[in-house]
């Protein structure tokens, strides 16, 4: 009789525990624009161009905010990547409430062009501006809303970077690669 009561008590406890509502947000709410760095080389023997992922020795990325009064760019307080070593891909947040985001990327690396031709880049800076649309994306009552983006255009200076290519215009919480940077 006593055992029956204990079993009933455990059953009821488990039943109540199983009915408890989980109010924690378990969805990723971070939305980042993904970049991959690539190097295109020409193989004389095969007469073909090959694209390989390029590892940068060190990289520093800062956000630039346009001051509407002075018309000049100022650094955002926090640095996104601070002299980060051996990097071939990076992820940055786009502005949630303005439709353009600008970043300053500082490269420190060597690029081997051929057996006898190695290029050295020391504190070489490029500015990258992304024009985008900001869209509200409602997730749930627990997670609320996030801003996802649709990339329109990307403009870049060419001190280190040769060219860029947008491969995925949608920037969401999947955090996939959106833009390829070619050296």
């Amino acid at each position, binding site marked *: 009789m006593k055992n029956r009561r204990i079993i009933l008590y455990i059953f009821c406890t488990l039943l109540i525990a199983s009915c408890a509502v989980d109010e924690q947000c378990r969805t990723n709410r971070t939305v980042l624009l993904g970049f991959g760095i690539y190097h295109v080389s020409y193989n004389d023997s095969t007469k073909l161009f090959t694209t390989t992922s390029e590892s940068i020795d060190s990289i520093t990325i800062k956000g630039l905010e346009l001051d509407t009064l002075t018309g000049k760019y100022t650094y*955002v307080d926090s640095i996104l990547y601070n002299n980060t070593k051996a990097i071939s891909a990076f992820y940055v*947040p786009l502005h*949630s409430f303005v439709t353009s985001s600008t970043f300053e990327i500082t490269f420190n690396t060597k690029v081997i062009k051929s057996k006898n031709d190695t290029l050295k880049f020391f504190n070489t800076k490029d500015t990258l501006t992304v024009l985008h649309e900001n869209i509200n994306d*409602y997730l*749930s*009552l627990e997670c*609320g*809303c*996030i801003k996802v983006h649709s990339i329109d255009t990307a403009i870049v200076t060419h001190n280190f970077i040769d060219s860029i290519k947008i491969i995925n215009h949608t920037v969401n919480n999947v955090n996939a690669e959106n833009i390829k940077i070619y050296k």
Partner: protein
Amino acid sequence: MQRILKYTSSLILCMLVYSSLAQKEKKLPPVNTAPFFNGVIVQADVASIAGSIFSNGTTYSYEASAQADFKHKLLPVIELGYAGANKLSTENIGFKTNAPFGRIGIDLNLLTPKKDARPTSNLFIVGLRLGMTNFKYNISNIIITDDYWGGTQPISYNNISTTKVWYEIVAGVKVEVLKNVFMGWTVRSKSLLSNDAAGNISPWFIPGFGTNNGNNYEISYTIGYRFQLPANVKQAHSSKKTDSVTK
């Protein structure tokens, strides 16, 4: 010796005939002597009222139903109710809705009347329901914060209208505790027929269905009264009288 053989053979023959007759009797289906129409049980769900009290107004639901009884076997049902939610999430996002809902369906009584047993009004049921509601809902005080670039934006979605359809698989019992007074419980498995597409502003609560999880389970506890046709009441009285005379 011949006599013994004669008696034993006749005994074996008798046993064979009896066993074959008994088998035939077993195969006969039980006769359903219940009248074609057994009245209508009008009932209220007490479990949903209790649940509403315990949830402190976060969610509430009140429902009643009318169930007809045909041959004490098939029991079509109409369920009507009113439900709502006034929820505040841990992030202080508010959700508000209230609307009527309806369900139609049918139950099948699995209790088969045993031969020579007293007729019973008790029911062991399994059934199906199709539920529907059309409602409007508000989601308020969603704050989007840009941690890197800075800035916040409050967002609210007001008067979003939607229609939800779902089905329910029902199982339970219903017992006649007093004359024509029924109490019973059912366990329900609820499944939405159409899920929200990704990116849609989906409601947290659906009146009549519960929290919007795709699948829900619910226990209902009903108290009801059976209204019978006058002819059926007379028949029931006369059958009781004949019972007492034969006794």
